[in-house]
């Protein structure tokens, strides 16, 4: 049987409940929510005078009602040391989601730490150190002293700060935010100049979208409303229904349905308008494709099921065809860009060549070009380009990114209503750090260096390489071996003899060991190898600011206590700095110790004022108090003023035609096809039978760090799925729910068979970064020249491990596509 909560009623929010602003801390869309809290011994009633909705709750409420919440939106948590009821429900007044909640965000309450209701009991509550053969709880001072002493000792060894390796989130939302990126940034980039640092989902410290930035086009340059205004949406490697759900439902769908027509006519008067069309570039037929077909009609959806990894060729062919037809925006190109002719010449690709390489029909490529750029009754067509991991984690990232931005620039679609060339994004953003210029370009391939035995101390912040890196199988083997050397050394000395312990650790590091410190909210897979765990607070347990995919910045107010002694990352970074300063002084190195001054923050707000407020563009207009008043709509960055009690924001970037280059001109870029670029990919493709395409699913947020302790989700996905064509299943002799091994020369992993008739023969799709089967195990070590991983183009063989286990017998393996009844 499917999981059921057996909840038949919920406590009613009383009229005097406390209301706090919340932005969902999961995906980049950043839906607005409110957290309502009230004392555990009180409750509202059904009479309109007794509840927050002023509604008669003894009656059935209609669809889309504000006066209902699901069991997943309810919990009992601690607030200022007391148990309170909490309901976290979507906000109808938020322009982002208009009251919609997704399967991920609408479980925020249920995925909060509650002793009373035993939810998220996996959360780390106290610092833990490896002692007497296992992780043992201890005090902050004890744990931080050990971290600081070992770290300082290694900074004093030859190699200095290069001995310290860091893995750190660089984003917003949970496990990030402006406060926390500033905290870690100030520690590693200001107090120190750490260059062996990497980001949560990739093995180096680099942008996923270098090319667009180098062209002068920041990757989040439009607003969500542009999806309601455009003539054509061009979606590349993004499955928006499942991964940016409410952006898709609340802003794409209205245009595809034609229900934003009135808005188009009002805001963009004087040109013809119709419901939008959509081009979807994806080797796989996704649930997004199905939903678009239902809403827009099949004639208005062009699904380009491209040969995996050939996107650049398609974009170059589009550019070539558009220019041949004379559909480019000549005035814009001449006023605001440079190197157009050079790029057109260099990237010239015929429809026939493109068809051959991409596997698409030439007429479909021509059709896409027309949908993007053919003038509508003499007026420029408005196209919005949105791309995500299919491109970002795909073949030849840098050139492919450039090739797409070329098309958007050539058609004058940046900085204008109904336009934009944007990444869809994964998590929210919240980057505020001192300069990272010392890291260099290309940045160090940190995971490879760790495999090779480099580095002595590893500080990990909210990252889990074991689930979210490439070449993960080999990485884990090397990492375990190295951290075990240190564990064995720690076991050999009494933990109470601190000098002896530190000496033993340093000695073990010199013998190839690695001392690892994991800062996180939950025990992670990589944490199993670490020697110290430091418990962090997450969004809502601290005040946290972030921005979403249209640069909309909001403050999530602290609505509950962090579990146990856990602290905001910004304050953990500050306390590490304090301890390092103390130990450096103890060692008589006053000069070095002085570099660790300035970490006397008491609250996350102190970190915010030191970081974002002082350093970010427009930050001087932004304070917690002002953000609180801006509610769940916030403002769009950058702020330009504070007027009439409101922060003034920026709806779209580049509306003046000036771009982010020295001369203000956006730069077209050459992007020439060179096949599968990352080392080892061509060989892997030749040798192994199945494409192991991979990505996210609707149900799961990120690497399931919270979902892994949520019954609703684990009941649906006890294992990662792998979608396989039924003919391939026959050849492999496997049935629905069977466990299979996916293996190649780089590693192996497991998944559960999900029969998928729409999958092309030889093409599979596996859930990425899932704890019970890590797809990264079979991704080879090859990257692009800037150390961007290529997860998508992976080939492997498949064999049966076991017939469907009892734990999957209750599952459905029916089509996930919506069909009208």
């Amino acid at each position: 049987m499917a999981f059921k909560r057996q909840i038949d009623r919920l406590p009613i929010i009383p009229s005097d409940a406390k209301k706090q602003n919340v932005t969902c801390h999961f995906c980049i869309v950043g839906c607005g929510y409110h957290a309502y809290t009230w004392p555990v011994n009180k409750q509202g009633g059904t009479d309109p005078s007794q509840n927050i909705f002023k509604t008669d709750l003894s009656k059935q409420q209609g669809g889309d009602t504000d006066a209902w919440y699901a069991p997943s939106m309810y919990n009992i948590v601690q607030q200022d040391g007391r148990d309170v009821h909490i309901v976290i429900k979507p906000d109808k007044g938020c322009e982002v989601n208009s009251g919609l909640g997704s399967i991920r965000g609408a479980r925020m309450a249920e995925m909060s730490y509650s002793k009373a209701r035993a939810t998220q009991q996996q959360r780390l509550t106290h610092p833990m150190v490896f002692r007497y053969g296992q992780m043992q709880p201890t005090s902050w001072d004890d744990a931080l002293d050990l971290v600081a002493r070992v770290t300082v000792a290694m900074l004093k060894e030859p190699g200095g700060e290069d001995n310290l390796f860091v893995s750190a989130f660089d984003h917003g939302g949970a496990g990030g935010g402006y406060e926390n990126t500033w905290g870690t940034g100030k520690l590693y980039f200001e107090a120190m100049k750490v260059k062996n640092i990497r980001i949560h989902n990739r093995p180096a410290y680099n942008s996923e979208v270098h090319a667009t930035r180098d062209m002068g086009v920041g990757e989040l340059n439009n607003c969500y409303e542009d999806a309601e205004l455009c003539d054509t949406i061009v979606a590349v490697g993004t499955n928006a229904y499942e991964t940016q759900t409410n952006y898709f439902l609340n802003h794409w769908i209205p245009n595809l349905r034609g229900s934003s027509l009135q808005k188009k006519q009002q805001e963009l008067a004087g040109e013809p308008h119709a419901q939008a069309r959509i081009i979807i570039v994806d080797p796989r037929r996704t649930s997004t494709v199905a939903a678009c077909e239902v809403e827009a009609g099949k004639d208005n959806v062009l699904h380009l099921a491209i040969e995996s990894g050939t996107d650049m060729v398609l974009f170059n062919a589009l550019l070539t065809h558009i220019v041949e037809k004379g559909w480019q925006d000549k005035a814009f190109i001449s006023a605001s860009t440079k190197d157009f002719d050079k790029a057109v010449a260099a990237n010239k690709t015929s429809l026939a060549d493109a068809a051959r390489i991409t596997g698409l029909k030439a007429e479909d490529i021509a059709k896409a070009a027309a949908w993007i750029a053919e003038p509508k009754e003499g007026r420029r067509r408005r196209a919005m380009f949105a791309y995500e991991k299919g491109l970002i984690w795909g073949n030849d990232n840098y050139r492919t990114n450039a090739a797409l931005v070329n098309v958007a620039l050539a058609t004058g679609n940046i900085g204008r209503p109904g336009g934009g060339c944007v990444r869809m994004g994964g998590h929210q953003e919240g980057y505020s750090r001192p300069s990272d210029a010392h890291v260099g370009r290309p940045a160090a391939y940190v995971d490879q260096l760790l495999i090779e035995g480099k580095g002595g101390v590893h500080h990990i912040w909210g990252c889990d390489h074991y689930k979210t890196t490439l070449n993960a199988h080999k990485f884990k083997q090397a990492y375990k071996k190295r951290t075990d050397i240190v564990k064995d050394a720690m076991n050999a000395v009494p933990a109470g003899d601190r000098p002896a312990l530190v000496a033993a650790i340093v000695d073990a590091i010199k013998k190839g060991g690695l001392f690892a410190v994991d800062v996180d909210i939950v025990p992670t897979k990589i944490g199993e190898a670490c020697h110290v765990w430091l418990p962090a607070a997450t969004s809502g347990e601290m005040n946290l600011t972030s921005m979403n995919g249209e640069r909309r910045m909001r403050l999530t107010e602290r609505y509950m206590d962090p579990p146990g002694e856990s602290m905001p990352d910004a304050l953990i970074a500050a306390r590490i700095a304090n301890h390092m300063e103390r130990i450096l002084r103890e060692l008589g190195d006053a000069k070095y110790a002085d570099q660790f001054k300035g970490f006397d923050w008491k609250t996350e707000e102190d970190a915010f004022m030191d970081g974002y407020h002082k350093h970010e563009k427009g930050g001087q207009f932004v304070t917690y108090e002002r953000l609180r008043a801006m509610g769940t709509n916030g403002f769009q960055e950058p702020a330009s003023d504070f007027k009439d009690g409101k922060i003034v924001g920026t709806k779209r970037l580049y509306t003046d035609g000036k771009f982010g280059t020295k001369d203000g001109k956006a730069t077209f870029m050459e992007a020439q096809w060179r096949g599968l670029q990352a080392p080892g990919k061509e060989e892997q493709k030749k040798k192994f039978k199945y494409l192991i395409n991979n990505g996210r699913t609707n149900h799961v947020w990120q690497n399931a760090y919270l979902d892994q302790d949520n019954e609703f989700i684990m009941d649906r996905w006890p294992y990662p799925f792998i979608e396989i064509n039924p003919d391939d299943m026959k050849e492999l002799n496997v049935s629905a729910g069977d466990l299979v091994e996916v293996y190649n020369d780089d590693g192996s992993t497991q998944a559960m068979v999900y029969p998928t008739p729409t999958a092309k023969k030889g093409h599979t799709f596996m859930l990425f970064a899932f704890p019970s089967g890590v797809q990264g195990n079979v991704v080879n070590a090859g990257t692009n020249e800037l150390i961007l991983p290529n997860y998508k183009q992976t080939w492997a063989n498949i064999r049966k491990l076991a017939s469907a286990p009892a734990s999957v017998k209750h599952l459905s393996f029916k089509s996930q596509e919506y069909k009208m009844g």
Partner: protein
Amino acid sequence: MKGCDKLVDAGRRQFLRGGAMATVGVAASTVLPTNEAQAKPAPARVEYPSNRLANLSQLKSNEPLDISYPDRNSPGVLIKLGTRVPGGVGPAGDIVAFSTLCPHKGYPLSYVAADKTLTCPGHYSVFDCEKSGLQVMGQATQNLPQFTLRVASNGDIFAEGVDELIYGRLSNVL
């Protein structure tokens, strides 16, 4: 340590006597409640009615029958699936009933006979009727509320419970 033992013992005796006011000497410093709870003990869960939905003779395989439960404002569907399923009732163990208010935003679900699923036109959720309402895909944060059924000897089918909260009401029985 002795004192502690005594306290524990006192507490135990008090518990065994079942009286809150029994310990002489403590009573002097006890404040009597001014507003003692007078409420009758209420059941912990809602009382579900037993409602007749239909008779076995009315059901045709894979043809849904509109019903409502626990009251007429809570629409649902009764389906004879044609294959035995977990939670199914009737001679073939194939009869099930579900709420047809999508637990995401309350849009009316419709039955797709080819897939034996209930799907939502609002935000594209899909629920599997053969897998006790498991959400195959979609945005609800719960699987589809299923009605507990009983078949009487004369073939009458009764609904007598619900296993998840129905959309649009904070108590399954209003």
